[in-house]
Structure formats: structure tokens, C-alpha cells
């Protein structure tokens, strides 16, 4: 049925086409392609399956999706950069509103709501991280960290970056790729039993060429880096900037890095109301003080509040637009484009819903649940519930070395128990041998954790 008008293409109607061609003054649509040289015209039909109707499509895609097992069917202990948290239904309602879903880059007039929602997002996250400036979201934590470090380099006029070796390996790859060849990276050791930054090594490596120190808190390995103030002190002594990556969901109970001296804070919004979406929920943020020199180094859009000609109206617009690559191309600060605005709006909704008390209770519930898990794990033969001795937030390393089993084996068996076991660390952190990074949050009930314990008990004792 080659000529059936497709529901998505109204002007396929032959009579309408006719009319329009007449206005244009050409005999056929292909005429309009005459600018493309004959030899570049695709001769064959594309080898793509024939069109499906909506119903067929639905059955086809749902058939494929049904081959997946989701983290709400099984019990999931995977984290490591993408975390399962409670998503309030209002978050989904708002980000599924077709106005927000299909808007793009409108002006402050017809998209007033988008501007306000993003300004509010900036403002809410600013409270969480206790800083005065937050950007319109960027891609993800890794990219936000890379940009933060590039900003630091521009701000200090230096090129050397010191990274904690506990930075998430995936993020490290992003940071290095975004940073090179402009920046030089060096890695600071950590204490194997606590995970904490090796202050001696830090002091040995820092110099007056250091642009910034970067660490994460809570770290990739879950522990809380408690030396924030000391690290900041070292940075300050060397006139380097301190950049800290943070899981914002911890900030109801953990001190925000600004309070222990961070100059730039970055992290991922995914925990704040985004479903995991096989990693489609990531979104990065960057926060700084409200100082001109910082603002001028942001590549991102920054929405500011302004009056309109009518009393009482709030308006919004782009602050210091002329620094962006939209305005200046390669002379702008790095680059900007489509990023993750809808997740920013959603994170704003999330923070509005939870408020100060919700964020506190949430942090508390996560810590209680994860501590409970570790306590129970410690009772299992050959299992160390937490390999590290430092306090942790929601993630922790389970050490299976003494069970004689590999993480791979354990995870396969857990799968039979409808459990997604934690991330195998044996490649990324071979120093911990057969260990795995587990994540426990507020979504885990006592029963869920107990089911893990019983299943592991079975596995390690058989």
C-alpha cells in the first residue's frame, strides 16, 4: 500500500501535494532534490522492515521488552553510578506532561513555565548543595565533573588535576576523555582499609601547577570521605581549587561539600526522581559560588530572574549568554546543546515534594537499611559485610574472598533467587579480590534484605 497516507505525514495526500507543487512551481517532489548529484542518490531501497501499524508495533516492542527482567520484578542491589530509589508519582506526572515533554528551546515568553521550572530547579538544588549558583543540567556526573575541572583549570590558569583513585572508573574515563589533551591528570592513592584519600600522597603530589583536586563523597566505593576539610586546606594552601562530586540524595544528612571547602560541586541528579531507565536517567549538575569569575566559566545555560514591563510578573532569561558556544562557537566556554533539562525539572519537583524533612528522613532510612544489611552480612561465614572500615552511605563493598567463591558465581546463583547481586569489583579494584559493590536504599524492605541474606547463606554454605 505504497500510497496510503501515513498518520504521521498529513501532506502525503496526493491532491494537497499537487497544490503545493503548483505553488512551488515544480512538477514533482524529486525535482526538489535535483541539487543532489545523481551519483549520490541512493539507488536501492533501504533494507528496513516494512511499516507496522500502531497495534502491531505495540505487540512487537512489548514482545521485546517482555524478554527483560526489571529491577522491580527482582530485588536489585546494583548501584555503582545508577541507583534505584523511590520515585514519587508526581515526578512522573510532571515530566510526562506533554507540554514539558515536547518543548525545546522556546523563548522566555511562550516557554515561561519551562524557564521558571528550571530556575526553581537551580534554586532548590542550590539549597541542597548550599551554594548560590547551579546550572541548567548537563549530561551526567562524569561530564559535569570534567567540566568542573576544566572550569577550575581556566580559573587558575593551571593544567594539572589531582584525582582520587577511588573516583568511579566509568566517570574517570569520561573525565579523562573530556579533559584531554588540555588537562594533565594525576591520581592520588587511597587507604585500602578505609578508602580514604591518602593525605600524604596528596601532599606529595600537589604543587603550584595544580588546578584542582577532585574526589567524590560518598565515594564510588560507598564510604564517606571524612577528610573534606583537610583536603580543602591542602588545596587552599596551594591555591588550587577543590572540586567535589556528590550524590545529592545523601545531602539530607551529609554535609554539603561547600561546607567543607569545595569551590565547585558536581554530581548526578538521577537519584532525585529519575527512574533508572537502563541509564537513561542520568543528569549532571555543577554548583558554585555567585562570583563573576565562576559564572563566566560555565559552559551551561544559567537562567536568571528578571522583571517584565508589567508590575508583579516574574520573567526569566539567560544570564551572561555571551560566554556560551551558542553565542561564540569555538570561542565560547566549551560547548552546550541539548542536555538533560527535563531531569532538572524533575529533580526540582522531587526536592519540592521531599522538603528538608523528607530529605533528612530519606538519608536516615538509607543509612539504617544499609547498616542493617552489613550487620546481617557479617554473620555469614566467610563474608565481610563491609570490606572498608569507614562509615558508608548507601553502598559498601562485600568481601567474598573467604568464601572461596567468585562474585561471578555468586551473582549467577543470586539471579536464580531473583536477586541482582552487586557489581563485581574484581576487575576495577583487583586489590579487593572477589568483592562486590552493593547498594541498599529506602526501596529495600527488611524482607528484601533478609532474602538476600538467606540466599547468600545458602550459596556460601553449600
Amino acid at each position, binding site marked *: 500500500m505504497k500510497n496510503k497516507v501515513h498518520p504521521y*505525514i*498529513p501532506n502525503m495526500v496526493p491532491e494537497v501535494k499537487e*497544490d*503545493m507543487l503548483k*505553488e512551488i512551481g515544480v512538477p514533482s*517532489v524529486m525535482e*526538489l532534490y535535483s541539487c*543532489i548529484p545523481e551519483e549520490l542518490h*541512493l539507488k536501492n531501497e*533501504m533494507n528496513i*522492515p516494512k511499516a*507496522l501499524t500502531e497495534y502491531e508495533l*505495540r505487540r512487537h516492542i512489548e514482545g*521485546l*521488552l517482555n524478554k527483560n527482567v526489571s529491577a522491580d520484578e527482582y530485588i536489585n542491589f546494583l548501584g555503582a553510578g*545508577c541507583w534505584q530509589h523511590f520515585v514519587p508519582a508526581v515526578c512522573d506526572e510532571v515530566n510526562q506532561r*506533554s507540554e514539558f515533554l*515536547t518543548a525545546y*528551546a522556546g523563548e*522566555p*515568553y*511562550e516557554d*515561561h*513555565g519551562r524557564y521558571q521550572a528550571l*530556575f526553581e530547579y537551580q534554586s532548590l538544588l*542550590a539549597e541542597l548543595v548550599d551554594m548560590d549558583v547551579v546550572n541548567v543540567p548537563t*549530561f551526567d556526573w562524569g561530564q559535569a565533573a570534567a567540566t568542573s575541572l576544566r572550569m577550575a583549570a581556566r580559573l587558575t590558569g593551571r593544567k594539572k588535576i589531582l584525582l582520587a583513585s577511588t573516583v568511579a572508573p566509568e566517570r574517570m574515563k*569520561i573525565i579523562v*576523555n573530556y579533559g584531554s589533551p588540555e588537562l594533565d591528570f594525576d591520581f592520588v592513592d587511597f587507604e585500602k582499609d578505609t578508602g580514604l584519600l591518602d593525605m600524604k600522597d596528596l601532599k606529595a603530589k600537589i604543587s603550584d601547577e595544580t588546578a584542582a583536586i577532585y574526589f567524590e563523597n560518598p565515594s564510588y566505593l560507598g564510604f564517606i570521605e*571524612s577528610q573534606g576539610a583537610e583536603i580543602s586546606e591542602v588545596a587552599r594552601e596551594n591555591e588550587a581549587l577543590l572540586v567535589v562530586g556528590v550524590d545529592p540524595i545523601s545531602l*539530607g544528612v*551529609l554535609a554539603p561539600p561547600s561546607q567543607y571547602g569545595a569551590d565547585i560541586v558536581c554530581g548526578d541528579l538521577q537519584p532525585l526522581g529519575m527512574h533508572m*531507565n*537502563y541509564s537513561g536517567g*542520568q543528569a549532571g549538575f555543577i554548583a558554585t559560588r*555567585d562570583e563573576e569569575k565562576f559564572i563566566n566559566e560555565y559552559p551551561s545555560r*544559567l537562567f536568571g*530572574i528578571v*522583571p*517584565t514591563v508589567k508590575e508583579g510578573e516574574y*520573567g526569566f*532569561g539567560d544570564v551572561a*549568554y555571551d560566554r556560551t558556544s551558542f553565542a561564540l*562557537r569555538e570561542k*565560547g566556554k*566549551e*560547548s552546550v546543546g*541539548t*542536555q538533560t533539562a527535563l*531531569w532538572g525539572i524533575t529533580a526540582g519537583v522531587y526536592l519540592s*515534594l*521531599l*522538603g*528538608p*524533612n523528607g530529605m533528612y528522613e530519606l538519608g*536516615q*532510612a538509607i543509612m539504617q537499611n544499609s547498616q542493617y544489611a552489613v550487620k546481617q552480612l557479617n554473620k555469614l561465614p566467610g563474608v565481610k559485610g563491609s570490606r572498608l572500615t569507614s*562509615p558508608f552511605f548507601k553502598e559498601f563493598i562485600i568481601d567474598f574472598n573467604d568464601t572461596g567463591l567468585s562474585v561471578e558465581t555468586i551473582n549467577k546463583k543470586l*539471579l536464580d533467587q531473583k536477586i541482582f547481586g552487586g557489581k563485581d569489583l574484581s576487575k576495577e579494584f583487583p586489590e579487593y579480590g572477589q568483592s562486590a559493590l552493593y547498594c541498599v536504599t*529506602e526501596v529495600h524492605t527488611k524482607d528484601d534484605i533478609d532474602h538476600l541474606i538467606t540466599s547468600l547463606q545458602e550459596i556460601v554454605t553449600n
Partner: protein
Amino acid sequence: MERIQRKNKVRDFHQAKWNEPIIFELHQKGERGVDIPLSDQAVAAEVGNGVSAIPEGMLRKEKPNLPEIGQARVLRHYVRLSQETLGSDFNVEIGQGTCTMKYIPKINELLVRNPKIMELHPLQDESTVQGMLEIIYNLDVCMREISGMDHFSFQPSGGTQALFAMASIARKYHESRGEAEQRNEIITTIFSHPSQAATAAVKGFKVITLHPDEEGFPDIEKLKAAVSERTAGFVVANPEDTGIYNPRIKEFTDIVHQAGGLCYYDQANANGLLGITRAREAGFDMCFFNLHKTFAAPHMCGGPATGALGVVEELKEFLPAPIVEFDGEKYYLNEDLPQSIGKVRAFHGVAQTVLRSYAWIRALGPDGLKEVAQTAVLNNNYLYSKIQKIRGASAPYVKGQRLEQVRYSWEQMAQETGVTTEDVQRRMTDFGLHYWTSHHPYIVPQPFTLEPTESYSKADLDEYIAALEQISEEAYENPEIVQDAPYNSTIHKLDEQDFLDHPEKWCITWRAYQKKTKQPERI
């Protein structure tokens, strides 16, 4: 009953206006928006209050200064803001040329709300995500057909990131041949998207920007002059922002190749080309498509999105890992790309977008995709014909030859009436229509770029044209009407002064506003 006469040429419109406070102003101490699941009492009994484990100095002393608001009020606030946002579902969204605003099929939105994608963790065992991997793989295969490339990565989460990834590949490629130091220039054109130049610079390249010839074509002589042993790559869109297709594109890529550079194609917007012509035949080594443009993923206020990155076989090993492959039995993640640039984004990119675009392609089939292209071009040329007849409007450069978009100019109208393209922009919102000026720099003076895509009917286009006509008339008869617009929008004209550009005045957050206007900072 007498017939109700409806004679308006333009829409009698008013946007929703709620005049909502800033969310912090809705604070009422004690209200709660949602209860979160607390720990089981037995858990608390075992471990105590949990937070006492936080090391000295790392405990947050004062709760974050967030507002406390009941659930209904939070919802009401945000749904009102949503109504104050002109999503493309609501309007004839052709005023955002280069952005390929098209119909976002509702079936796809329904599909991505399935928990079997929403609740997948990216590190799940491959056996538990076979369906997801199959979707990614299938899209890869479709993209290969559409582009002629050999492998795709969906990790880049936007066109800009795809451009960055391509610049990274270019660098790595030359590095692998020991030419990284030497080959430090990327050539682009002024009518290509700013991110092409910007991402090349991020990756440490010197950027050489070619200007067009008089007819608006990229200038082959200038290219010849630009290439050298320092050339790392050439990046270009075709058609460029002007909508003009460069018929000598194969010569361009040949020249660059001869100089030892790679050619990468910005196909963010490939809407006029589907099934018509491909990156491979034009000589490109890499290309990317914005799934949120050509392939009908929604723009979501500006992401999350996907820049689907395709490369020829020789460049496969440089792709960001992992990519999805099929071994004849099962789908798997191939991490084994020895020259990989590493990563540009966490895990696998934005899976929802991949699903949506795959669904869109399957809803159209090969014929449908070609119809998309042809109708987009038809629509654009219809608009092009009509707009040139509007007083004060023109379309600089060569006559005809426009594919899916056109960069127009109000230069004449501005000179004759003082009404600028920014004035027109504001006035258009009074008719429920969005209008974007154009990318900087304004090489075309008083520019505007329209791209009607295949999604709009002739009636839709005629409505848009009527609004432009009316504004032109107003400009010539009573320019203040246009200059003081909007009137029917959510808000009135911004009183910008230097509120956005002066450090003492700009307020990027509510707390900054509170400080700068001397209000108590804590709510």
C-alpha cells in the same frame, strides 16, 4: 441559529497565565509533599538511628533550606507551569529551524513508560536485558542502512556530545598513527551548528571556519586553501543551516581525505535525506543523527537525548564502549574496543530515546522514511515560496536548492520599519506560535530559520504564514504593535536592563535573589 462567523486570519489566542509564585514562596512550615518509606522498626532496633555513623564534621548541621509544601500544591504549581510552556504537541512548531520539530508519536511514549525499560539497571546481567539489547541492536542495523556506516554507538546523549565523540575519535585516530601533535586543526563552516566548532576546540583542536561563497555554498577554493598536513578533520552539516545542499560534497571529502584528515558529517538533522542520499556515498567516515530530531524522540525541554554516532568499519575500535553486538544467539555488550576513546557518557546512553526511534522507524518502514524526507522537503519549499512574497522578507543566496529548512531575513523590513527579528519573535507568541531567530553569528542579517518537517499539514503552514504576513503588515503600518509585543503570552516583555549580564544584578537562584534584594535568606 445563525452561523458563528470566524473570520480571523490569525488565531485569537491567549496562553495560559497563572502568575505563579516561585516555589519557595509556597513554603508553609510543617507541610509535607510526600512521605518516604522509613526503615522497618526491627531494622532501626538493630542499627539505631543510622546517621550517628556519620563521621565528625560530615553530618549536615542544618537541614537544607527547602520549602515545605503539600503534595497537591506542588503538583498544582508544576502543572500550571507546564501549561505555560508551548510544547510542540500544542503548536505548529516550524519556527525552530534546524531543530526538526516533528510529531512525537504517543504510542512511543506509552512504550517507554513500560517498567521493563524504566526499571532496568544498566549493569544487569545480559541475560536479563536481552529485549533491551535487541532493541538497541535493531536500531543500529536500521541506522547502518540509513547512513551507510558500519557501526553505531548510542552512548552520546545529544548532538553536541556526538560531535565531541567524533572529535575525540579524530584525535585518537591520528594519535594511533603518531600524528596527534601534527594534526591539530579541524575545519568547519560558518553555517554549521556552533557545537561543531565548539567541541573541536574542547578536544584541543584549532578551528578553521570556512565562509560561503556568494550563492551560499561552502567554498571549495577556501577548503583547498585550508587543508594541509595539520588537518585532522573536516566537519560539516549538509544541508547547512541555510537549507542549501552542497552538491560538491564528495569533492570536499575527497580533498580532506587526500590531505589525511577524517570527514565527519553532522546529520543531527537528516530529515530531508532519509532514503535519498547517505553519508557513506558522500565520502564521510563518521556521522551522527540526533534521535531527538530526525527520529522523533521528544525534545524534553532540552534533553535527555541521543546523538547516534556511526562510523565506518575502520573506526569501529575507536567507538566509546560498550557497543551492542549479536553472536547469532544472544545480544551482548562488547567492551573490547582496543582504541576506544573511553566514554562520553555513563553506561549505555539514553535507552528510552533509542526505543522511541526504533519504534518510529518501524512505524514508517523504508517507504515511510522516504516519504518523511520528501514531504519535509515539499513543505519547506512551499513555505519558501510563500515567505518570499511577504513584504520585507527574503531568503538570501541562491534561488531554490533548499531542502528541509531555509534561513530567511527581515533585513529589508528592519531597515524600512525598525522592526527586528527579535520583535517578530515576541509577536509570534501572541498567535500561539513559536519562532526562533537563528544561530549566531547573524551572517544573514535579521535572520529567522524555519523548518516545517513532514509533520505539518498545508493548513498548518498556511496558519504560520498568515501570522508572518500579519506581522509584516503591522510592522509597516504600526511598528509599535510588534515592538511592544507580546500581549497574549504568559508574561509581557522582559525588562532586561542589565539584570542578566551584570554580576551584581543577575540572580541565578532564589537564594541569590533574596540576598541581592536584601530579603531573609532562610524561608
